[in-house]
């Protein structure tokens, strides 16, 4: 059984691969780039082949009957309506076929769940609506946002090649290394999926689940969030850059340098103009999805910031809501996501943009004080 199964699967793979060479895999799963993805690909082909066979036999019989046994060609109805032997046969045969599917499938299930002995571990956190990556071995951390400009989404600019599948900071991994993923979420359910790598795992707030992959080839692999997570569910892609080991080492060094700059930022004092410029960038990456670029929000769903009591009232309350969020609503606690400098910048920007002409500024030191050095610890980098 198993031998035939594997042989047929291999044959099916060949068949679809030749057809796919021209069609760019549009009729089958994406070209696999890891062992697991390849196993799934073959498993799927094998099952499709079996289904196709059954379909042809059963519906061949049905269509033969539809053509031959019709009243208009003068066929007289037979009167049989029971046959135990036949019933037993067509209960047992499907059962046997199913076992031929279950065995190879079970092997892949066990492979997929085996996350032991990783070469490296990355913690992935889903946020509304971006991904956060923490490289637990290297100490590198960053967020990954959609980088497709709003104009392309709103049809005022030509769409790029990787429309909606491009990010500002891709996840980078070395080729051929066994990467263990620890996946969780900050707010609602998300799901991390890169089809070519064969890794998909729901991101569940309060729980950490794991998955793994070993990328075969250097290249860029793209995926998306696949669990409905609110308004911008369709706008939080995943990009994984698989690079050589040397390139990976260079990338890690570069990220560490950037983290040092970010750390010094948290301790210095900015002038208001500098904060506003920086704050606008932070706002567009983190706040504009809900509160909109013009600060007007969406009535009924997301409140306006322009003219709001919070953004024009005491700065402490404003900092508090950005740091700690508003429980029971979509307003997340950004204390864990943004650095002191970024929070200071975005608060300052919100207090001085649009109709809000408060004129004051928040400094990183104030944010650090508001954190109180306790639970809302600042993230390591960014």
């Amino acid at each position, binding site marked *: 059984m198993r031998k035939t199964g594997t042989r047929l699967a291999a044959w099916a793979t060949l068949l679809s691969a030749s057809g796919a060479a021209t069609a760019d895999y549009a009729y089958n799963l994406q070209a696999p780039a890891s062992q697991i993805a390849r196993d799934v690909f073959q498993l799927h082909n094998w099952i499709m082949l079996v289904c196709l066979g059954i379909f042809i036999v059963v519906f061949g019989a049905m269509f033969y009957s539809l053509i031959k046994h019709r009243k208009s060609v003068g066929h007289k*109805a037979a009167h049989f309506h029971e046959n135990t032997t036949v019933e037993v046969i067509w209960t047992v045969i499907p059962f046997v076929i199913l076992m031929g599917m279950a065995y190879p499938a079970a092997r892949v299930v066990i492979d997929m769940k085996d996350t032991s002995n990783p070469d490296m571990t990355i913690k992935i956190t889903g946020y509304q609506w971006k991904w956060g990556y923490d490289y637990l071995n290297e100490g590198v951390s960053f967020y990954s946002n959609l980088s497709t400009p709003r104009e392309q989404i709103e*049809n005022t600019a030509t769409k790029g090649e990787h429309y909606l599948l491009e990010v500002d900071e891709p996840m980078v991994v070395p080729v051929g290394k066994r990467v263990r993923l620890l996946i969780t979420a900050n707010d609602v359910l998300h799901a991390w999926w890169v089809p070519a790598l064969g890794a998909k795992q729901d991101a569940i707030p309060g729980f950490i689940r794991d998955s793994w992959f070993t990328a075969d080839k250097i290249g860029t692999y793209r995926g998306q969030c696949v669990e409905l997570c609110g308004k911008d569910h369709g706008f939080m892609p995943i990009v994984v850059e698989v690079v050589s080991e040397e390139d990976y080492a260079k990338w890690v060094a570069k990220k560490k340098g950037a983290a040092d700059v970010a750390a010094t930022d948290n301790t210095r004092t900015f002038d208001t103009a500098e904060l506003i410029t920086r704050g606008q960038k932070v706002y567009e990456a983190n706040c504009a999805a809900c509160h909109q670029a013009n600060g007007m929000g969406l009535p009924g769903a997301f409140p306006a910031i322009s003219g709001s009591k919070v953004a024009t009232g005491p700065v402490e309350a404003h900092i508090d809501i950005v740091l700690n969020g508003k429980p029971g609503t979509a307003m997340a606690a950004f204390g864990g996501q943004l650095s002191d400098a970024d929070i200071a910048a975005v608060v300052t920007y919100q207090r001085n943009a649009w109709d809000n002409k408060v004129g004051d500024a928040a400094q990183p030191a104030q944010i650090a004080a508001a954190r109180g050095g306790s639970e809302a610890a600042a993230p390591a980098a960014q």
Partner: protein
Amino acid sequence: MSDAAHAHDDHGHHAHPTGIMRWLTTTNHKDIGSMYLWFALIMLFAAGSMALLIRAELFQPGMQLTHPDFFNQLTTMHGLIMIFGVIMPAFSGFANWQVPLMLGAPDMAFPRMNNWAFWILPVAGLLLMSSFLLPGGAVAGGWTMYPPLFIQGGISYDLTILAVHIMGLSSIMGSINIITTILNMRAPGLTLMKMPLFVWTWLITAYLLIATMPVLAGAVTMLLTDRNFGTHFFNAAGGGDPVMFQHIFWFFAHPEVYILILPAFGIVSQIIPTFARKPLFGYASMVYATASIAILSFIVWAHHMFTVGMPAAAQLFFMFSTMLIAVPTGVKVFNWVATMWKGSMTFETPMLFAIAFVCLFTIGGFSGLVLAIAPVDIQLHDTYYVVAHFHYVLVSGALFSIFAGIYYWLPKWTGHMYDETLGKWHFWLSVIGMNIVFFPMHFLGLAGMPRRIPDYALQFTEFNQIATVGAFIFGFSQLIFLWVVLKAIRGGEKATSKVWEGAEGLEWTVPSPAPYHTFETAPVVK
């Protein structure tokens, strides 16, 4: 009402009440059946319009017609209304009309409760639909209502919970009525194993409803208290578990999936023998297959959640149990084909829809088998492949069986034959349109397009455009259906008592249209 009071004077005329009050207070199973079916038809057009708006937005990449949040409202409401407002009420309509006729009973066991079960349904429908007008819009968290996203929403989320409660209560009352009618009001001699298969499938469906509805009611109540009263059933920060909601929800919703398809099996099993002019092959095995599907439906729920990260042993268990369902389902398909085999077939509209059902439902069954394989499911979970799968099962499965049943029994209900030419137009446009919409979705899912997204990457464009074209063909051809039904009600060729040459069963022994009250004295089944 003086007419009615004098009805006894001239025996021929049985006057009965007219006007809106007749419909509000009627306890007659035929009136209630008709109302269920009309309600389902209206909701079909409402939720169908939402589907067309969804497909129009997805015609090309970029946001054109909707806002992402409104798009989520559309997909959520489309799902909720199609399931709870169209398929379930339509099947209840068939049950109300046909079960008493098929059993030779004068009415349902609890006519007053039957009236309540129907009339709370439009209230729930109105609550759901009106939530579009509330601040923040309608519910947008998906018909599966997963927390914590569902906890974030506005007032319309609470209204939706209320509506789900009302629809659940309606289903409970309807099911208890159907079960007691079937068990207690059979004509003398009509033993369980002589009942028409449609009655059997509804008996099992009602059982599933009664077994699982409290679970849904409890699940949405816990959402409500988590939202408003500070409980933490599904909040990890408070010691709860968001995944547990999915377990509870799918413990209800997988049997629910069969609630949406078992009566379809029943309808098709009535129609195929009629037009093959040959008794149903393997009646007993059909009954056992239906029962096995129902029993298995309680132990497969977690195959909807292979990506939540369960242990390998759990994945294997749910994978194997799910694959097992293919066996009784296969038996059913084989029996239908064997019923056609060596028959003397004609192809009126009900038969065409029934054949399309067997063929296309099987495609949905095969994609279901593909999705049962846990590793493949993990690749395809929450992609358009799943969307294709359940639309093959629910559109070419449940909905086509409803069309088939309407065409089949409409002459009995109205006393007039429907327009066969228009019926055939409706069939061919529906079956072609339906395949154009949903077949390309398999490829979209395989290529990696997630479901529930308002905008997509460029490589998905062509298949989405094809699907949208198909959706409009499919959607607008339903207007033909509406026209056929209205035409048959208003007049047309008189139907005979038997209607179809090959028809068998008690319902074909009463005149067409079935008189307002049938079977005053119980017929005897030999």
